[in-house]
């Protein structure tokens, strides 16, 4: 799936030397994980209701599943979406983005959860269990 390519962009801008590079890295790390989760849900036959916010839809489908793996990914999505919102919208100076540390952590979180999602997708039994674990 294509969403993970944003992780390469996140890594690239992480090497920049400004707060806005590090904010951008956080934003791209979130989208890498979010888009992969959205596309996994769509591939599993799940669809958001008309007009439903797709960010919340993907996060909450995972959060309300009975799978510990999907809940773990939901927790990471939750963290990354809050960081992304701060990075995108709250532009007053904050220690969160005064160094590359937060961006590095966001990239590491996205990498970690993408690896878990890949394990689920690659294993037919785990994949089916994940699909079955989703709420009706």
């Amino acid at each position, binding site marked *: 799936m294509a969403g993970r390519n944003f992780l390469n962009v996140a890594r690239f801008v992480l090497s920049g030397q400004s707060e806005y590079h590090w904010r951008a890295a956080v934003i791209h790390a979130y989208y890498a994980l979010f888009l992969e989760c959205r596309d996994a849900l769509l591939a599993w036959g799940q669809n958001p209701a008309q007009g*439903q*916010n*797709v*960010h*919340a*839809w993907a*996060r*909450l489908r995972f*959060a*309300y599943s009975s799978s*510990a793996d999907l*809940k*773990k990914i*939901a*927790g*990471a999505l*939750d*963290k990354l*979406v*809050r*960081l*992304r*919102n701060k990075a*995108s*919208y709250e532009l007053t100076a904050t*220690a*969160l983005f*005064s*160094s590359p*540390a*937060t961006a590095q*952590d966001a990239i*590491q*979180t996205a990498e*970690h959860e993408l690896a878990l999602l890949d394990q689920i997708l690659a294993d037919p039994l785990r994949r089916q269990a994940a699909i079955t674990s989703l709420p009706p």
Partner: protein
Amino acid sequence: MSTQTLIPTTIDPQAASFAARFGLQAPLAEMVGHLKQHVPGLQSVVVEYAPAYDTGEDGILIQAWCNAAQPPQQQYWQQFSDWKTARFSADVWRHVTLILSCDERHGG
């Protein structure tokens, strides 16, 4: 006095109001207590309201700061997240998010 009570904790009024509206006061207090007990080098905790912006849901953000001498924050964040999702229902934990950061300006 325990070490926990010495860690400065701020809860902004909007976050308190959100917690009251959704009946989250007790879970939120438990989460902050758990954090103080289990994250070494914790220097301060700020509980703030997190607007939804374009991502669908508002909520509560716990911003916890460690001193810079502590190991990478990911390990402690993951432990907290695993505990939170096991301890509370999604109806509760979906509203509260932890961001754990280390920064030299917060001690160490």
